[in-house]
């Protein structure tokens, strides 16, 4: 394969020299005693090898293979159980090996097929039809059906509904609101009823900010608040 230029990562320890994947399969077949293999050193060596540049694909494989071996080895290191249970445990160990084997095999078969797809891709990349040179807008909806669009739109609607609380509220500044109140009171020298200040207030926040602005103006003695009696409407006016 033209794309299989990368060599598998090889390890070099006193007990074994060769591709890491081979070490795993030998260990799985029982031809190598993992207890004698310094996995820590292999990991260290790989880490120092990656300092000069890392191939993520390879790193993934090395990590996976090392992890599998570490798991196998840790099981080997656990004290041997009583003979009566030995049979059961042996089954488990072989189950694990089988599982590992199966997973590796499965992954490999997908990798092989990926190589086959690569060859198809390379071929097809050299094939041109009129469509590929045609209207670029034609491919915008590639692989999308009306159903997909409809569903996507529904999702957007749902999300919009969920996000209502997160939509940034229009910022209302107390200072701005003070100016608004002053302008209103200047236009109405005879005074304005308290409620009129909130006539067009659209949100709780706006009401609060308006109220704060009013308190600020009263504190500054720029606005006067008068009430004829208890529960009577409050009248606001500019301080003379």
């Amino acid at each position, binding site marked *: 394969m033209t794309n299989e230029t990368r060599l598998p990562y090889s390890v070099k320890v006193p007990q074994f020299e060769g591709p890491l994947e081979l070490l795993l399969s030998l260990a799985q077949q029982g031809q190598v005693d993992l207890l004698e293999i310094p996995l820590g050193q292999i990991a260290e060596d790989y880490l120092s090898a990656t300092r000069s540049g890392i191939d993520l694909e390879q790193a993934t494989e090395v990590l996976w293979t090392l992890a599998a071996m570490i798991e196998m080895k840790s099981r080997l290191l656990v004290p041997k159980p009583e003979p009566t249970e030995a049979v059961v445990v042996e089954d488990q160990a072989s189950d694990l090996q089988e599982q590992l084997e199966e997973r590796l095999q499965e992954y490999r078969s997908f990798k092989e097929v990926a190589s086959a797809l690569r060859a198809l891709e390379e071929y097809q*990349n050299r094939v041109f039809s009129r469509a590929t040179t045609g209207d670029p807008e034609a491919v915008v909806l590639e692989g999308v059906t009306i159903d997909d669009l409809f569903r996507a739109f529904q999702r957007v609607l749902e999300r919009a509904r969920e996000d209502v609380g997160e939509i940034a509220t229009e910022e209302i500044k107390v200072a701005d609101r003070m100016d608004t109140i002053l302008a209103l009171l200047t236009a109405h020298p005879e005074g304005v009823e308290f409620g009129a200040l909130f006539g067009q207030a659209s949100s709780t926040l706006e009401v609060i900010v308006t109220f704060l602005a009013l308190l600020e103006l009263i504190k500054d003695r720029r606005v006067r608040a008068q009430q004829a009696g208890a529960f009577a409407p409050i009248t606001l006016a500019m301080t003379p």
Partner: protein
Amino acid sequence: MTPEIDTIKRAVECILLVGGGPVRLQQLRTALEAPDNVITAALAELARDYDGHGLHIQEVAGGYQLVTRPAYADYVQRFLQLEHQETLTRAQLETLAIVAYRQPVTRAEIDAVRGVRSDYVLDRLLDRYLIREVGRRPTLGRPILYGTTEAFLRHFGLRDLSSLPPLANHDPRNALEAVAPQELSVSS
């Protein structure tokens, strides 16, 4: 050869040129108002006519497509001023392979096969319309199911999903044997 088939053959040629992308048999049937066997015969005849030409007919994504032969790709590319065609990364190909053979498949199932998280790779494949969400599995968490698109078939020049290279479990050579490019070889 009857004169009728001759006409149909030339009409098919016209339609394939104008169609650009894969034209389905059903579309040809509607346009030509001819029975399928006449159309396929015309296609086979036309495919033979293209022997020794720069163009040929390829069966892709459930249809027939008039395309340039790969041998002349360099010229075409230079004319179109296309730089190197963007190919998929190895991780993308692997992930795509898993989606193609296991579809509909969840992200977690893909991760399990690859042994690493595939979020980023899946997003890139979605961006390129090579895969799409095909629904949700009615289990806990209702995970999203992914499947391949028609663009996937076109990208790899596949007639349909059944013409994917066979997924070999034991002999790696099996997978590679199916790589032979698909030229139209209608013989009926």
